[in-house]
């Protein structure tokens, strides 16, 4: 008998055995705090970072608030209770922070090399002529500390501050004190409170008035240590008329235990400022039986404080065992604009509950939500979004498009759109579709000589096109490839 249908399955099965390329462990001596969390641990983290007293107090207040809170349970995800006393809250490569790249442990440099992250300014600049690439400034965060930030001098010439959060607390306390916790308050939610108490490194960006940041900024987060949580904190401020494009990437080794990642990202856009924040999230997703992987519980929010300001989130979420994140925009400035473009792909036993909140609090504010959810394997993929228009948001407009693509018949796609409109002149549009990668589409591709693996990647790429074109060019290519790898074994 013919086995052509089995062959389709086989082709798909071979895709399953895909490697998580970023899953290696860096063998480096690490200083790790013993597991558990109390006030002394918070103080110790603060001391490690040589923080001023106000920062220590700020953390302690967050810690006390957190103690009284309980984890949120409303998300459409399932996992065993996390024991917060079994997690270590600080890990860093041993030794003093290197003053320059030359002093960075070569083992660390090799790590970033393997991940394809450019840390050598000279090589980057040389590449400019060779390949026509624009240089990208990188802040590399390894476990709880930033190990290097490139192009700082060039950025400084333009007036742009790009450094680790720890450095910002020391060097730019006035900006940190003014804005930290203003967009995501310490009491915002359980994980945000935890982050506020124990946050490790992350990036700080300040773009002064009227300045267009001369290059892309990016941060690469790497979890390496075992049994350690990562709690990075990022704060980006675009002053009046300023603009900046920022990208974050994240990876972690393959381990059988789940690891917690609870980040907070705050964006502040003053009048006419423009912030574009892109994420390619590739934390270790766990194996095909659902063992291990990162719990990615993240609070990301931007505030369009000034008139005509704009904040745009673009995310490509392929990693993590569980993703719980809702990059949101609070539109306080008249005529301000919020955007959310998302591709969330779940395979095997991954779970994602992700979406956005667009809070219209001023007249003529505008928001756009384009969400593309792809579910494969036995995964569950949920879009959860809120569009709220306040009574004074005359002429507010929102357009939401929410598409789900199913691969196979054992996965789930769910959509929870919430609309709260208190302003009758506001226009809120919502469109949603659900489709499947059909056998007919696959057969068309294969009949034209395109193998099943490539065909699925092409079909999914087409589905995500509206989001990919929002990514900076070279990251769009990276995202496409990542999707291809993450999809391996997806059709059955």
């Amino acid at each position, binding site marked *: 008998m013919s086995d*052509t249908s089995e062959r389709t399955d086989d082709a798909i099965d071979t895709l399953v055995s895909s490697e998580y390329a970023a899953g290696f462990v860096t063998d480096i001596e690490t200083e790790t705090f013993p597991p558990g969390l109390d006030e002394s641990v918070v103080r110790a983290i603060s001391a490690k970072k040589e923080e001023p007293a106000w920062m220590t107090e700020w953390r302690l207040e967050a810690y006390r608030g957190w103690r009284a809170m309980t984890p949120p349970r409303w998300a459409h995800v399932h996992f065993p209770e996390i024991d917060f006393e079994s997690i270590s809250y600080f890990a860093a490569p041993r030794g003093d922070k290197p003053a320059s790249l030359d002093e960075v442990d070569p083992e660390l440099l090799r790590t970033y090399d393997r991940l394809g992250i450019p840390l050598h300014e000279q090589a980057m600049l040389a590449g400019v002529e060779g390949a026509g690439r624009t240089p990208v400034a990188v802040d590399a965060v390894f476990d709880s500390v930033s190990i290097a930030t490139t192009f700082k001098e060039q950025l400084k010439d333009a007036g742009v501050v790009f450094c680790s959060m720890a450095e910002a607390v020391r060097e730019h306390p006035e900006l940190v004190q003014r804005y930290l916790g203003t967009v995501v308050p310490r009491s915002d939610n359980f994980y945000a409170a935890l982050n506020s108490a124990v946050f490790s490194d992350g990036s700080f960006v300040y773009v002064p008035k009227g300045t267009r940041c001369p290059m892309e900024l990016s941060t690469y987060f790497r979890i390496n240590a075992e049994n350690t949580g990562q709690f990075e904190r990022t704060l980006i401020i675009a002053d009046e008329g300023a603009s900046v494009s920022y990208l974050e990437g994240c990876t972690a080794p393959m381990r059988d235990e789940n690891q917690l990642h609870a980040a907070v990202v705050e964006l502040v856009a003053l009048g006419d400022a423009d912030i574009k924040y892109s994420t390619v999230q590739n934390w270790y997703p766990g194996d095909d039986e659902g063992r291990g992987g990162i719990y990615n519980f993240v609070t990301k929010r931007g505030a369009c404080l000034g008139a005509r300001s704009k904040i745009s989130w673009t995310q490509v979420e392929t990693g993590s065992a569980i993703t719980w994140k809702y990059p949101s925009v609070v539109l306080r400035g008249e005529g301000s604009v919020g955007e959310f473009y998302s591709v969330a792909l779940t395979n095997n036993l991954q779970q994602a509950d992700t979406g956005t909140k667009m809070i219209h609090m001023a007249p003529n504010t505008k928001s756009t939500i384009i969400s593309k959810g792809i579910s494969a394997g036995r995964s569950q993929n949920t879009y959860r979004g809120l569009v709220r228009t306040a009574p004074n948001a005359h002429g507010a407009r929102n357009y939401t498009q929410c598409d789900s693509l199913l691969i196979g018949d054992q996965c789930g796609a769910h959509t929870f759109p919430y609309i709260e409109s208190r302003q009758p002149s506001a226009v809120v549009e919502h469109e949603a579709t659900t*489709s499947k990668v059909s056998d007919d*589409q696959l057969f068309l591709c*294969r*009949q*034209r*000589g395109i193998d099943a693996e490539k065909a699925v990647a092409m*079909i999914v790429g087409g589905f995500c096109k509206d989001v990919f074109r929002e990514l900076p060019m070279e990251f769009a290519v990276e995202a496409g490839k990542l999707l291809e790898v993450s999809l391996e074994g997806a059709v059955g």
Partner: protein
Amino acid sequence: MPLLDIEDLHVQVEDQVILGGVHLTVAPGEVHAVMGPNGSGKSTLANVVAGRPGYEVLRGTVRLAGEDITQASPEERALLGLFLAFQYPIEIPGVSNMEFLKAAIDSHALARGEGAPSAAAFIRRARATAERLGLDAGFLKRGVNEGFSGGEKKRNEILQMLLLEPRIAILDETDSGLDVDAMQVVAAGVNDFRDTGNAVVLVTHYQRLLDYIVPDHVHVLAGGNIIRSGDRTLAELLDRDGYSWIEDAC
């Protein structure tokens, strides 16, 4: 050596036997028409030869230029030079026609041990071929079959055939849903394609396409078997008398 050699092909779909011992031999340079009433197994024949999943071959062999492809995957058959023009071309939203064609052409080139053509060379050729089929340049940028009219979808199939240059092209009801103008364009494309080294199998319900693409052989498929073969006059007979006489003959 025949380009396509189907021998004693028995096929079932979901426990129902659709083909019960089909023989068909197609030599280079020939055009064959396979005709028959609805439900006679025409589309099954086209699809099973192309290796579509869901069809179970109970017995028999399919050879392409001497190579047994009965168990080959759809992409292996395609890369050996077998092309199927679909009766209902499906949409692939967001994937541009250009991207799709380039991927198909590249994998064919790779299979022949050649390098992929340059993007510029490919675009020039694709545009020129599309133009011959009355498709404007913007057509190539649109999503595969996305929002295409019935005629555009069928012309797109012919475009793919002309670009991929298969050894054997099976056209499954390519005439259905076409007006006379579109049919003439499609037929011109097929006639352009024909040469002494390749072959065409037209699967059709109606004789009218055969006014434009003249077949060397006509076969009547009914009840899962080829019950009669002849030259083009057989098609004219079918056109005049319909298929009712076949039911009597079965």
